[in-house]
């Protein structure tokens, strides 16, 4: 264990409210030199608010920020960057059409003329100094998520940031990329940088953090060194304030008729995909992100046409299914992108509920507004979507509540086939558990295709598991097959 180092930043008595919601209440937090500090908490616990305050994007209602012993006030992100605080956001802020070096230097070009060579050399030096593998001349649009994240890190390093804040950095990464990130984090800490990372994944906190602070409902519940933490369960308990069980009770459902039959699907990055799914079954599709899951899901859900091969959905060919779609006993798609694809942020909950269920509320050309309101309120209540009233705008909901709304809406149509894509990504344990229970219940009347990067989720929920690598299904096995489960890491890496 490292010795307690100098305190670089001390937050004291930080409070911040949005209207009536207290996002942060009287928070005290210290950040030390050369230390990785994890900020752990459920969705809506106030982690992002706190870090936005530290990064100068939000201003606290009260409380003080002390940097190197001097009380400081940030009125913009720029002022925070000037004293060495930088943040890597979950959604990267990069110019896709520019090169890595240009992005790193954006706003710091120094002079009117660009010197591409010099910029590339400087970025290469910086990358080498911190063991970050990247090609400075590459165009950002061609990069993987992991590489884009490294560009964001380089931007901060160039601006001589001493405190680097990461907002759920692994959410968008493949497991391998996550490992590389953790190595980079430790390395940067050894170089004297302070790292703060926001997470709700217990495993990675245990692995990489030196210290952990746990936030619950806007307050710091606990702040301790990682060596004092005895187990993951310990952390989970502190985070949610109650015992959570990470497993799901699943009773056996007899397989029904075929709801999805894919034969020899080819093209769009897919190679000869064949799989089938029966009512009452969950088929997990696992794999490192970017190995063909996206085109597979988009083809099955009708967002792109199959180039070659046959898809039969609920007994109908792909073409006839999507040209005449029924409102009941149909296909429901629960996409990964909850805010950009599944909902309209500035509409209220009942309008968002209507997005996919509108056909059930038609009378001629008319919308039966009264029924829409009562049914959507019903769904909001049954799925405990907070805040519990339908006039709230979707953008004011946390990720978990938004997902519950999407789930409630999609289940409302009694789907026969459900495609759930990363259904619990970015959600806290309690919400994830609730979503899992909903999915297992839905399985009784539907076949579920569960596309996930979370192996724990795949194994807990699925009846069968298919592993994808480079657009192919490399193996498909019963979840009870422990031998195959043991080799799944190799399969995902294409080595088995």
């Amino acid at each position, binding site marked *: 264990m490292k010795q307690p180092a100098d305190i670089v930043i001390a937050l004291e008595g930080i409070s911040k409210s949005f*209207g009536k919601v207290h996002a942060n209440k009287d928070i005290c937090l210290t950040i030390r030199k050369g230390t990785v500090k994890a900020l752990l908490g459920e969705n809506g616990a106030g982690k992002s608010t706190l870090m936005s305050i530290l990064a100068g994007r939000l201003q606290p209602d009260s409380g003080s920020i002390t940097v190197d012993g001097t009380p400081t006030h940030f009125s913009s992100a720029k002022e925070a960057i000037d004293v060495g605080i930088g943040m890597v956001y979950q959604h990267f802020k990069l110019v896709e059409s520019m090169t890595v070096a240009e992005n790193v230097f954006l706003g710091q070009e120094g002079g009117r003329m660009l010197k591409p060579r010099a910029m590339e050399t400087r970025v290469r030096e910086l990358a080498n100094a911190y063991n970050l593998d990247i090609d400075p001349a590459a165009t950002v649009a061609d990069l993987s998520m992991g590489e884009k994240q490294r560009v964001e890190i380089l931007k901060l390093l160039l601006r001589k940031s001493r405190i680097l804040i990461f907002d759920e950095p692994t959410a968008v990464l493949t497991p391998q990329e996550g490992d590389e990130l953790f190595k980079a984090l430790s390395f940067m800490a050894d170089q004297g940088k302070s790292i703060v990372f926001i997470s709700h994944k217990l495993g990675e906190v245990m692995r990489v953090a030196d210290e952990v602070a746990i936030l619950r409902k806007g307050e710091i519940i606990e702040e301790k060194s990682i060596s004092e933490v005895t187990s993951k369960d310990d952390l989970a308990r502190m985070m949610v304030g109650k015992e959570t069980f990470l497993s799901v009770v699943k009773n056996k459902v007899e397989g029904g008729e075929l709801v999805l039959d894919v034969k020899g699907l080819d093209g769009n990055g897919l190679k000869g995909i064949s799989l089938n799914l029966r009512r009452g079954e969950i088929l997990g599709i696992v794999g490192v992100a970017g190995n063909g899951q996206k085109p597979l899901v988009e083809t099955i859900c009708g967002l792109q046409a199959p180039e070659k091969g046959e898809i039969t959905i609920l007994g109908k060919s792909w073409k006839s299914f999507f040209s005449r779609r029924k409102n009941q006993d149909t296909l429901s798609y629960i996409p990964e992108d909850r805010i950009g*694809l599944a909902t*309209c*942020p500035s*509409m209220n909950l009942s309008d968002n509920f209507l*997005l996919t269920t*509108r056909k059930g*509320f038609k009378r001629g050309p*008319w919308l039966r*507004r009264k029924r829409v309101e009562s049914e959507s309120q019903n769904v909001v209540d049954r799925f405990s979507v907070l805040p519990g009233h339908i006039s709230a705008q979707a953008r004011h909901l946390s990720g978990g509540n938004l997902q519950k709304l999407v789930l409630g809406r999609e289940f409302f149509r009694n789907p026969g086939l459900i495609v759930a894509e990363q259904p619990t990504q970015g959600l806290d344990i309690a919400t994830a558990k609730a979503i899992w229970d909903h999915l297992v219940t839905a399985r009784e009347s539907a076949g579920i295709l569960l596309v996930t990067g979370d192996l724990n989720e795949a194994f807990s929920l699925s009846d069968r598991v298919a592993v994808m690598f480079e657009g192919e299904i490399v193996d498909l096995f019963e979840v009870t097959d422990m031998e195959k489960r043991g080799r799944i890491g190799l399969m995902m890496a294409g080595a088995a």
Partner: protein
Amino acid sequence: MFDLTIRKRQESLGWTAVLIYSGAVAMALLFSAGLLFFQGNSPIEGLSLLLEGAFGSSYAIEDCLIKAIPIYLCALGVAIAFKLQIWNIGAEGQFALGAIGATWVAITFPGHSSWVMIPSMMAAAFLCGGLWGVIPAVLKLKANANEIIVTLMLNYIAILILDYLVYGPWKSPDSFGFPMTQEFSSGAIIGKIGETNLNWGLLICLISGLVIYIFFKFTVMGFELKASGENVRAARYARFPYGRLVIISMLLSGAFAGWAGFVEASATLNRLQPTIMVGYGYTAIVVAWLARLNPFYIGISSFLLAGLRVGVENLQLELQVPAAFGEIMEGLILLTILAGTFFINYRFVRRPRP
């Protein structure tokens, strides 16, 4: 000392929004006063002449209402397209086509009663204006053509078609060579309301506004249109017929502008002539934006902008201010409104310098 910093608003606004927009209009008036001053006129006198000319007498208010009718219909159309985030700036051309369609009916089948004439002229204006709006929609969907460019270009084409007709085949033999059609038969003219100078076009406005309000609030397609405008990707996800929505919104958008053209030709001019094109289609953009696309507010803002036109006429007479002054003011209002939206989303905060 104080520092000003910009903060994003975290709560939505209530009445402050009204205040901001009024402030924007006041700002535009202030700039206009400055312009008057540079012309050597007294700004106070100028602005009071403007207001007096617009709202100072019952005759003036009547005139404002008459001008507000075509502006309202055009703006309602523009708002439908804007709701779907289709930037239709072609109301001017759709207005021209509507006038052409109505005129064709009026001069081809003269002598019928107004019970036959008015509805068929409305249908023709609806179709011609609507189809003129559908052209850019189809080009957008099939060829990915930018609707801003296409609708703008189509305005010029429409005006040239109108010119061709009134200088050529439709020119009245007894117009002494002036470019205009013969006067419509009495059945083709929208009548006046009671003893006033107002025409029944006002009723078309009221009904259209109500229908559009109901359409957006209570129909499935209205909902689909609104939701697609909010988030096109979600519309695709929820399998809205996006292409069909674009076509229909542009059809309606053009049709309402077309009706404006019909009312103008029938009620105001009683014939078709080039002076029918006075830029209502462009004013409509300012009006729709000022009203945040709400049919009710469009009513208020078209009355105000019509007032501007009427008031400037008075200014022209009294102070010999050029006619372009009205257009300049209109442009200023659009600019200050657009600038005002910044204050809807952000606010300035004062804080003591440490």
